[in-house]
């Protein structure tokens, strides 16, 4: 049949030509090892969901500008930050943009990366040897075969989490002590609820461990809430379960290890049902929702702008000078990623190649005293730095209720979780 044979001919032609492609394509992927680096500049770009993390880009730029101004980079180079590339929170776009940044824009590094969609691109940057620094909120930061990706607080979503931080429990302990309870968190009844997915299930185990490590009595621990993207229609079943978990009465503390939409749903539902205990979660530090999150203990991994330490005030000043008035978590994260990049560059020195950068970074310790870290690599490939802070909103502003501090890691021995030091405990 004529039509069939026409298509067949086309297909065969394509195949034949493809076979010959070996000769024609030549060195398709060759790149000079000094991509993005000249005698006078180092080219970097940010990457992430602009709509949410634009502030991170601005803060990173502020840090780069500062570094350029103070001649912090060895060899007299300046950092050429070409902007924050939008990945529209889409894995495909993220990958496409990463490829473009590397092959077309020829960047040396991608700083800061602020995107939970940065996954498949991880394999690419690793293959292409592109130093990548950012907030470790995607699994690419935790894949130990990715040697070029670093988080300023390490890998935050390891799966399975072999070395979670013992932070939250300790912070709650600190919180109670600051409230005047001399025994701290010891003996307090606590309910732990997480999203119903793998990370939620592991999250429950981890928080149970960190709560029990400071002597809390866990009366309810379930990964029960439907996880996003499906919204929960009605929180009543979960509220009920929690409110009767302490022998028919409410517990002293509730840990909401859940996504933002569930925090903003379950939290108020608990209050509506008459919950008078302590609500703690990792989402409530959100200036846009300060009114809604009043009274909740917000867990953050690094210090917030309200922190009174001199180092934090310094950072506030730098950012304000760059036009960022009320910096939020994303902004700070961007700043830290940029800062870490600068610090590593300083250590590498004049002779800069991706391989050299990687060698230094893989053994680096990143810290801004009282603000963020220390984060140790290579431990950071497997674990997040076990540091944090609690703050509380009074309806319009936040204040620190448990100061920034760093603690141990937890690890499973047999069926129990035990504490191990950071970073030595990471094998």
């Amino acid at each position, binding site marked *: *049949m004529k*039509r*069939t044979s026409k*298509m*067949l001919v*086309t*297909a065969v*032609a*394509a*195949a034949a*030509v*493809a076979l010959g*492609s*070996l000769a*024609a*394509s*030549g060195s398709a*992927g060759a790149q000079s090892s000094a991509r993005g680096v000249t005698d006078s500049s180092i080219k970097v770009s940010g990457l992430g*969901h602009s*709509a*949410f993390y634009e502030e991170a880009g601005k803060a990173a730029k502020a840090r780069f500008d500062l570094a350029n101004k103070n001649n912090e980079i060895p060899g007299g180079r300046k950092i050429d930050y070409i902007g924050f590339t*939008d990945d529209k929170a889409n*894995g495909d776009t993220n*990958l*496409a943009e990463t490829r*473009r940044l590397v*092959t*077309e824009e020829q960047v040396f590094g991608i700083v800061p990366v602020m995107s939970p969609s940065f996954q*498949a691109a991880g*394999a690419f940057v690793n293959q292409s040897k592109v130093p990548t620094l950012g907030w470790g909120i995607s699994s690419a930061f*935790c*894949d*130990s075969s990715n040697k070029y990706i670093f988080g300023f607080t390490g890998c935050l979503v*390891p*799966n*399975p989490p072999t070395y979670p931080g013992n932070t939250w429990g300790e912070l709650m302990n600190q919180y109670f002590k600051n409230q005047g309870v001399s025994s701290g968190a010891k003996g307090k009844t606590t309910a732990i609820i997480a999203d*119903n*997915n*793998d*990370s939620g*299930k592991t999250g429950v185990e981890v928080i149970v461990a960190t709560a029990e490590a400071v002597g809390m009595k866990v009366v309810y621990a379930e990964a*029960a809430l439907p*996880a996003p*993207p*499906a*919204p*929960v*229609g*009605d929180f*009543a079943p979960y509220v*009920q379960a929690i409110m009767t978990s302490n022998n028919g009465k409410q517990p002293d503390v509730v840990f909401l290890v859940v996504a*933002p939409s569930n925090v*903003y*749903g379950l939290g108020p539902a608990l209050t*509506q*049902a*008459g919950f008078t205990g302590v609500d703690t979660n990792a989402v409530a530090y959100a200036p*846009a*929702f300060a009114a*809604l999150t009043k009274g909740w203990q917000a867990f953050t991994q690094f210090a917030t702008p309200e922190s009174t330490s001199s180092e934090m005030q310094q950072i506030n000043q730098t950012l304000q000078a760059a036009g960022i008035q009320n910096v939020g978590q994303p902004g700070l994260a961007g700043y830290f990623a940029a800062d870490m990049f600068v610090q590593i560059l300083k250590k590498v020195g004049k002779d800069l190649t991706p391989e050299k950068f990687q060698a230094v970074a893989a053994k680096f310790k990143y810290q801004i005293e009282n603000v963020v870290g220390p984060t140790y690599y290579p431990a950071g490939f497997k674990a997040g730095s076990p540091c944090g802070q609690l703050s509380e909103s009074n309806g319009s502003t936040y204040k620190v209720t448990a100061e920034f501090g760093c603690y141990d890691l937890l690890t499973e021995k047999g069926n129990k979780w035990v504490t191990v030091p950071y970073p030595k405990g990471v094998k």
Partner: protein
Amino acid sequence: MQKFLNLVISGMVTGAIYSIMASGLVLTYQSSGVFNFAHAAVAFTSAYFYFQLNTGQSIPIVPSLVLTVFVFAPLLGLALDRIVLGRLAKAPMYARIVGTIGILVALPNLVQWLVDAVMVDWWGLDLTKLSEYGDSGGPIPPGIGPTPAEVYRFEWLGLDGVNLNSNQLAVFIVAALVAVLLYLIIRRTRVGLEMRAQVDREALASLRGINPRRTSAIAWMLSMTLAGLGGVLIAPLFQLNDPTFLFVVFASLAAVALAGMRSIPLAFAAGLGLGVAQNLIAGYRRDIPWRFFNDLSGLESAVPYLILLAALFVVGRERGRAAGSVSDEKPAPDHRAGLPSWRRKLPWAIFTVVLVGYTLGAFGWPNNPIYVRSSILAPGLALAIVFLSFVVVTGIGGMVSLAQATFVTAGGYMAGWALQLSDARHPPPWSEWSFDIPFVVHNGSMNFFVACLLGALAAAALGALVAYPIRRMGTLALALATFALAWVMYFIVFQNDGVGNGSFGYAFRFPTLNLFGIETLDFSKASTLVCGLLLVFGVITLLIHNLQRSPSGRAMFAVRSSSVAAQTSGVSPARAQVALFALSAGIAGFGGAMYGLSNFAVTRDSVPPITGLIWITVVVTFGVRRPGGALLAGLSYTAAPVIWRELASFSWMPDFLSELLVSTYFTPMLFGLGAINLAKNPDGLLAMVGHRGLERRREKERKARIAEAELGLHHGEEVVVPDAVPEAQVLATVGLATPDGTAGAVPVILLEDVVAGYGDVEVLHGVTVAVERGQVVALLGANGAGKSTLCNVTAGLVPITSGTVQLSGVDVTDLAPHARAQEGLLLVPEARGIFPGLTVEENLQVLLRDPALRAKAYERFPILGERRKQVAGLLSGGEQQMLSLAPALATPPAALVADEPTLGLAPLAAEVVIDALRELRGMGTAILLVEEKASEVMKVADIVAFMELGRVVWMGPRDEADDERLAAAYLGGTHRGEA
């Protein structure tokens, strides 16, 4: 007990939202035949508007609410009705589904694009962008009640522990109000009666003066008001973002299905039940002593979809009249019809050569070929392969499958698992097969191609498994079933650790093709990958072409065209459907493996079910009927954002245009709009290109074919086509002529030189007929003479090619049927002019608004009075005919056209009908009567006219119509030498 009550009452709050949404969906489906997948989009858009008014512009809650629900939402509904439904109402079911999916995709993106890119960035208005809310999910607008919401506890009712806030209470109250109002509107008002009549028999409704466009518009406005109301109620209970709204409304689909997609009260009740069921399952799940059930992640989210599936099994079976339609679906014209084969293939051959040449570096534009190959061409071709599955299931099979994304994921998972590549979770040596099979497994790792085939097979098996139980469902039910299935798989199956490898998914690395130990092809080179994908695409296209020409392919076309006819010819529609579905799933699965290859990995969230919806809009835009469309669609999807960015970066491009182009919302909006526009045309954009040429070619052929068709009727016999009776003679016969041969008094019915037909076949070749006041003109003739066509032309159901129709001197040629009805024309059609779904009383109400007139009708036909509340479909034939004539006797119309009124009636009943006609004549009605039984006709006719071959060949007073003429008229044919 406390816990139970608690769960039930607060479950009813969410349930009330489902009820409101479900009612709106049922309303539009029943009144316009379009199932509005975009209901959620309207809810979101309304909530967004409310948010902008209230939070953005600080307009107080109540005015914001009123503006949103009673002004914005209905206007949006009206706009949708005018712009979209006009195109979709007569389209095949799959096009209607795809069109509304297009709205679902386009509308939220359009609105956000308008606000973000146009109004804020360009015009500089001070509106709030949703993206300012960062990753917290979106703002929480205030609700209808007091702000902040007050909490009500119900201890005084004995319901200790039950608490509702004012927003939740508001939902309850509003839902109850809505239920009552809807009932009143639909059952007790004129508008509701017209809507129900139209749903029952649409053509008849327009013959009875009900304007179908107006009724449909009202139904849509009402339904969109409900959607808007629902949106405003949802907003304070969740966060304002599009996906959340989508999910809440998708969940209400279960309530719609439980209501059989037809009953609004049932939809209401089902919605409440759904909310309660969700709560009870969430609350008692851990009490069930079954470990697997307890641990099943994602069960709560999947509940509405499980219920939807179950409901569809029960109500989804095609219950409509199977026999009785000539064609379920006429294939849309192929604009390449009539072109020689080489001419069709040439553009694609050129395209392929150019593509391959570019890939191999024959020419270097644009700047970075490597990037283009690896980021546009390779993923685009992988996607094109996936889109080929749409060509099979929708283009060939006419089914809408909303689960293609699921098959892609399944295939990708299977292939990825077979490849067993290590990742952080599974370091070596997990990743190795322990046995060797030549060509399949070697050194612990599986041949890449075999792994992909496994993926395709797994997906095909899944497809067959899915298709078998749903094989007898109609198009809409099938689409909904695949939709439900996709979500169940997403929430429960793919979430499972063992199946989906956690959040890592499965990794893919570029294979190399080794022939005889020498590395021949390295697919990590972008050019090789692109050529390889192109080859795969070509092979699958070949497969599809062969399928179309194979017996199975033809069987599928047969089933689409008329499933009843197909069955009687021995084709099993169910088997063909299942096979096709499985094949499509297999192609999608293979595409999944290709996708994984070009994107490094396949995870649960690589391709969620929502993406499947977006894909449909993309494929339909370019044409779902042909593989070429799939190719263009795939490449466009990956190339579009890049093209916009390139355009935006040109220095001559003004800033505001750049903002418009690079906005996140721009591309999905375009594809959504494309789908809306092109849903009807299976060749999408490609057709628009070829359409002009087609029109020209058609015109040339038209003239020749008309003559051929007619002569063919007589098997090539030489026929002297008789002359038509001239107009002057007609008028004279009817008694209207003045001495000089022109008309004196104005005839009530006048058809002058009417030429009309169906499509290419002309049936009436210049007919002139007139009927005067108080006169009965009877039309006789053989089958095929054009009698029924003439009746339909008079009423306006068949359009006229040339000539005029006048009613009492008013030219109604261009008027729609309902407008002619309002001018005083009543058509009693061939199969009884009653609404079988309405009661006798309601049937009369359609034409007789005044109760006094209805009383008169009952007087005239007492038996109708006895059966007042009975559904008209249950009456006997005679009673039905009485019912259809009763309004005429109560208020005599100026003109009555009766098409075989005594057909199928017993002699006594026929008598009653003839009596009624006599009575009407006595009251002054002009009657044009078509009858099969000449004897009956002779009793009542004043004038008799004979029709033959689409012309009136003789017309005269009854007495002059003798037996010989009658016989000739009925047996047809020769009038040789007649004067």
